[in-house]
């Protein structure tokens, strides 16, 4: 590390450890001797396995972050929340209509939102969670889908919600409704699938499959490249 010699004190579930300054919470916990089973996944900010809550000595605020993307600070008290119970509706996507009724039928609790904005404040992806829940309450599936798109489903929003909403599950239902029922279908894709099923490319591919390496290489070098 750049500042290898500087160490800081952190408190993992109340227990003090000395760890190098400037590393992420995840790497610091490993340095301190932890070998994760839960609370560690992609290690790169995509999977939502390592939601962490912490407090610092200079503030009463409860802070959150992903352990893989948040740096340790001196005096930090932390714990991971690798799992938080959540209800999830089950559905047959193809049979649903993209409507307010569908959202309310599967997640009636969205109407209980108090507008406290804790979900938005806690979101490590800095999404406007409360806004997309408000959009869901209005049946604006497109907006819910787009505003929740960067959600990594870490569950921190649900852990703080006084109305007991599981925001990230509302988000994925909206996104799938949008992707399946609202977003326009790709006509060129359907056409190509039809061509493939009709065997249009079979002959050409058979020829390529039987070609010598030299002949393939010659064609490869000579192929035109779309600008």
């Amino acid at each position, binding site marked *: 590390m750049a500042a290898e010699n500087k160490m800081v004190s952190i408190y993992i579930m109340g227990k003090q450890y000395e760890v190098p300054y400037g590393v992420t919470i995840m790497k610091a916990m490993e340095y301190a001797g932890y070998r994760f089973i839960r609370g560690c996944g992609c290690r790169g900010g995509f999977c939502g396995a390592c939601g962490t809550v912490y407090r610092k000595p200079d503030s009463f605020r409860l802070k959150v972050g992903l352990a893989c993307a948040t740096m340790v600070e001196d005096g930090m008290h932390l714990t991971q929340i690798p799992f938080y119970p959540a209800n*999830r509706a089950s559905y047959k996507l193809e049979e649903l209509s993209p409507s307010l009724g569908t959202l309310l039928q599967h997640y009636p609790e969205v109407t209980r939102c108090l507008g406290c904005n804790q979900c938005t404040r806690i979101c490590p992806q800095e999404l406007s969670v409360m806004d997309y829940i408000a959009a869901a309450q209005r049946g604006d599936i497109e907006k819910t889908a787009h505003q929740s798109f960067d959600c990594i489903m870490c569950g921190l929003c649900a852990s703080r919600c006084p109305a007991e909403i599981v925001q990230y599950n509302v988000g994925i239902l909206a996104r799938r409704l949008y992707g399946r029922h609202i977003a326009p279908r790709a006509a060129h894709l359907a056409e190509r699938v039809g061509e493939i099923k009709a065997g249009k490319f079979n002959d050409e591919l058979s020829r390529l499959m039987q070609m010598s390496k030299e002949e393939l290489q010659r064609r*490869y070098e000579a192929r035109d490249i779309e600008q």
Partner: protein
Amino acid sequence: MYTAEMLSLIETVERTREKRLKEAFPRLSAAEKTNILQSYHPDHMKDSMRPVKVGPNAGEKMPHELVDVLESRSMIDVDGLALENIDYDVDVLVIGGGGAGTAAALLAAERGATVLLATKLRHGDANTMMAEGGIQAATKENDSPAIHYLDTMGGGGFQNIPQLVNALVQDAPICIQWLERLGCMFSKDPDGTLNTIHGGGTSRKRMHFAHDYTGAEIMRTLRDEARNRGIKVVEFSPAVELIKDDQGQCAGAVLYNLETEQYLIVRAKTVIIATGGSGRLHINDSPTTNHYGATADGLVMAYRAGAKLIYLDATQFHPTGVAFPEQIVGQLVTEKVRGLGAQLVNIDGEQFIYPLETRDVVSSAIFRECRERQKGIPVPSGYGVWLDSPMIEMLHGKGTIEKELPAMFRQFMRFGINMAEKPILVYPTLHYQNGGILINEDAESEIPNLYVAGEASGGVHGRNRLMGNSLLDIIVFGRRAGKNAAEKAKTVKLGKLTLEHTKSFNKELEQQGLGQRVAPILLPDYRGKISK
């Protein structure tokens, strides 16, 4: 967060940017490519590999770290474990809860099979989740599966298995349509036309994407669908050994519950290995883009059971891993950044490689630029080169990065670097296992009733995979494996379960004086150190 020295070096990059915007760096000839690969790619470094001494590939060279796990003994007490106490009795066992495994489980269930999906971490903790840039498919009018075939073969050094590539490119549009119908939010124009861009080594713009969360969008959609269909999933329970029957067929697996430390016996008529790759073995001591569980478990188990491996001496280093800030060194900077027009630039503000050569070639060029030519930019972990991301805003308009590369933007902003305004520092990082367990186009291994899909398999990508062919691979071969395993299960008659193959492998190890280590290692061990 950049140091004062770095900020002054960035001025050089900014000075040459206007000129470079109009400058097309020439592509390398075939001979130049061969030359640069042989001189700089880690696959060609003699001291990075040794021959494996036991098993179906005995005598073949592979990276030390892979040989170490292949020459390890089982963690199970093979004489003490009672195989008759069956915990799960199913038609199809899927090992691995990433994209390939989940696609396989969905298709197997659709065919009426009872399915169990066992996974080491949570369902969806996989490299699929981290794949950012896109998925290839020849869906546009100016493109065809045949052109996709040619690009893929060229990228793989013409050593890909033709039947596998044929399956890959012909199934590709069908898979995109399947995902579209499952509600995947691919980036589209208002008329429904799918947005596509180039990837390294593509001759048509066929990289489909969902911003730069493409893999995450696919993974969470498949996982959600698996939950809707009620597919049984056991998490935190990796398979540690395959079970065969007395006729030599694959017949299940031993799982290990990481939390309760108990073994569980699964009897299955067919088994699908979808355990992914091996980045967390840190081949060549390299940092990696891979998720926490990428430890080659499937290779180890299948090898012991007698499956042949292919092209494991070909390792993909992604050209653009993060080189700075230090906290996220080795993490992925998606190829989409270059696909959108960012150039690679040295300390003097000059281009040194066409940015969309194949990954093996671009990585080698960066190694050369830093090592031989000494034109890298010093960073705490060694060297980096500039990836001139602000060019994207100049080419496509202000705000493009935040819109098209939200994950990348967020990743750097967390450390105070705005990649829309300043270039970023990158260096090659361990990314992908090009080879794996040999399969045919039905996703079958050489062991009866054992199927393999995704990164754990080998042959489809030859010696170097193209960007966007991996998300495609997991869907194409995941679906094929699931469908075929379910069909096969209808006719399978299993005999007595046995671990004789494990016993004889242990014996073979003993004869060679090997087997001091235990594998699969399941998780890397970073205790007491700062991980890469």
